[in-house]
């Protein structure tokens, strides 16, 4: 640790300071607006500090963290997403009259966890980042407290996260026991062979470790919690779980495995492939006739992680770009989708039933349009980033000749069309039920602005993605 390292660490420091600042401020003056403002200031400062950190040549700070371009890009992404979530939460919390200050603190600590994850080059930071994220999320999921659903979701998440963390730690221990190293660079030679030449105990360790990762990513067979937590959690938190939590862990996975290319015949490759296929199939099928919009989004996220795994398994720089681009697209899309849910939710409950969306297009034209664009982006239709992203994934897969995976991807995403369009149909075609309460309070300006920005983002980079791709190219090049 040198003074220079502190500059490199600046984003993390700012991010760490932010919740403390919010907390201290709240201690003196409880104000929702202040908390949100400070949060946004903190997040903005973090983003600004990224550029400062980017000027540094030495990026590795202790064996634990590396602030290379990849990490900085992802921290920026996570931070921006968090800012989006924070703004979307404003109205949601306002309507529910709960103390909102802790919410923002937890949001910030969770983001800190995510930032640590994406910069992690060591099991210790991996584990700690994951736990900071998880522990913050427990409280965030249950945050408004007053409904059983929140508690139920939080308990499920906590128990599963705790136990899978135990698996993760146990796996780390086994790997360490056998190899004596806990750093990415130390593990690379082992992983490069897809664990082919490693001792069985290392293989065991890696698999156990992947349980923890798989849980966070919600891939089959560690996916069962997803719908319940998405449904139970407040909509903005759902957005957060779907984006920041998953994105950070996937970025970490990419960092650990990207420098190596899994040998397509190796056990690990086959395990990933099987998990990917199972996730794509199960995710899409589970959502097929689902009537709860949040659960639909949950199941679809399972499928999307399956898609991501396809590109993850592909080799070369293109695969890393594909994953990253897809994650960016997925972040924006999911935020927009959950944002709509959050914005439309009345105080009593979240607007999550499909019937809540019936005839939405007639009542709230632009909200419905934004949601539709988000859904089409999830479905991978052109003019949205989802299209380019999915195209990139398939390209990456095709580049590594993962034909079986691609074909599964293609076929299952076709199934996916069915449930996305169900929501679209509900909004545009159906009439509201007789006597049903008209869901769709006026969308507040802040949420509206975020939704508009996200939609514009989706479309602009869906039509002209080249600048973003160049940026991502630069970011992932530091991985290789």
């Amino acid at each position: 640790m040198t003074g220079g390292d502190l500059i490199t660490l600046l984003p993390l420091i700012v991010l760490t300071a932010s919740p403390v600042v919010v907390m201290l401020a709240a201690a003196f003056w409880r104000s929702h607006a202040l908390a949100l403002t400070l949060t946004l200031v903190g997040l903005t400062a973090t983003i600004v500090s990224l550029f400062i950190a980017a000027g540094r040549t030495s990026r590795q700070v202790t064996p634990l963290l590396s602030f290379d371009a990849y990490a900085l890009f992802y921290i920026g992404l996570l931070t921006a997403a968090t800012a989006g979530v924070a703004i979307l939460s404003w109205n949601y919390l306002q309507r529910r009259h709960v103390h909102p200050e802790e919410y923002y603190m937890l949001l910030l600590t969770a983001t800190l966890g995510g930032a640590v994850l994406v910069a992690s080059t060591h099991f210790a930071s991996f584990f700690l980042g994951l736990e900071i994220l998880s522990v913050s999320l427990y409280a965030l999921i249950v945050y408004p407290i007053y409904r059983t659903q929140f508690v139920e979701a939080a308990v499920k998440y906590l128990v599963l996260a705790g136990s899978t963390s135990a698996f993760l730690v146990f796996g780390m221990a086994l790997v360490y026991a056998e190899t004596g190293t806990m750093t990415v660079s130390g593990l690379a030679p082992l992983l490069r062979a897809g664990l082919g030449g490693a001792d069985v105990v290392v293989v065991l360790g890696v698999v156990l470790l992947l349980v923890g990762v798989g849980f966070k990513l919600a891939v089959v067979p560690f996916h069962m919690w997803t719908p319940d937590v998405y449904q139970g959690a407040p909509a903005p938190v759902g957005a957060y779980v779907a984006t920041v939590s998953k994105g950070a862990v996937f970025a970490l996975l990419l960092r650990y495995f990207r420098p190596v290319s899994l040998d397509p015949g190796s056990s690990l490759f086959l395990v990933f492939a099987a998990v990917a296929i199972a996730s794509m199939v199960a995710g899409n099928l589970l959502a097929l006739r689902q009537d709860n919009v949040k659960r639909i989004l949950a199941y679809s996220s399972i499928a999307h992680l399956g898609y991501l795994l396809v590109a993850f398994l592909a080799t070369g720089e293109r695969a890393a770009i594909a994953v990253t681009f897809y994650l960016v697209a997925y972040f924006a899309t999911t935020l927009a989708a959950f944002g709509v849910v959050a914005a439309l939710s009345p105080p009593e409950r979240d607007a999550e039933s499909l019937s809540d969306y019936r005839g939405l297009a007639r009542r709230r034209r632009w909200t419905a349009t934004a949601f539709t664009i988000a859904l089409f982006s999830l479905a991978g239709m052109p003019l949205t980033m989802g299209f380019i992203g999915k195209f990139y994934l398939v390209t990456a897969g095709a580049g590594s000749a993962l034909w079986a995976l691609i074909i599964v991807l293609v076929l299952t995403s076709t199934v996916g069309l069915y449930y996305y369009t169900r929501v679209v149909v509900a909004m545009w075609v159906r009439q509201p039920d007789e006597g049903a309460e008209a869901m769709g309070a006026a969308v507040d300006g802040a949420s509206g602005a975020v939704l508009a920005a996200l939609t514009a983002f989706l479309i602009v980079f869906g039509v002209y993605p080249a600048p973003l791709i160049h940026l991502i190219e630069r970011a992932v090049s530091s991985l290789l």
Partner: protein
Amino acid sequence: MAAVSLDHGLILAAILFVIGFVGLLTRRNLIVVLACIEIMLNAAGLAFVVAGARWGRADGQVMFLFVLAMAAAEVAVGLALAIRFRQSLGRLDVDDADEMKG
């Protein structure tokens, strides 16, 4: 000091770990479930200490410390949740938490 085989240390950790896992699968009382998670985490920490002992370095113990911190955090939030759970559902039976499904 006489050497304990690495395998035996790890096997002990594994045994404790799976016992915790059995508890997780069979016990419905939230407090016990949390205790089982503690058992598993403890076992994992044990594995780290064993591993550290193999290499004769402090890393294992450091990791144990982090696990310890995490366990503490987990338990703190977990027990707070248990209080809420009891308030919301009247009991501590995790099986009661099946409102959301499908």
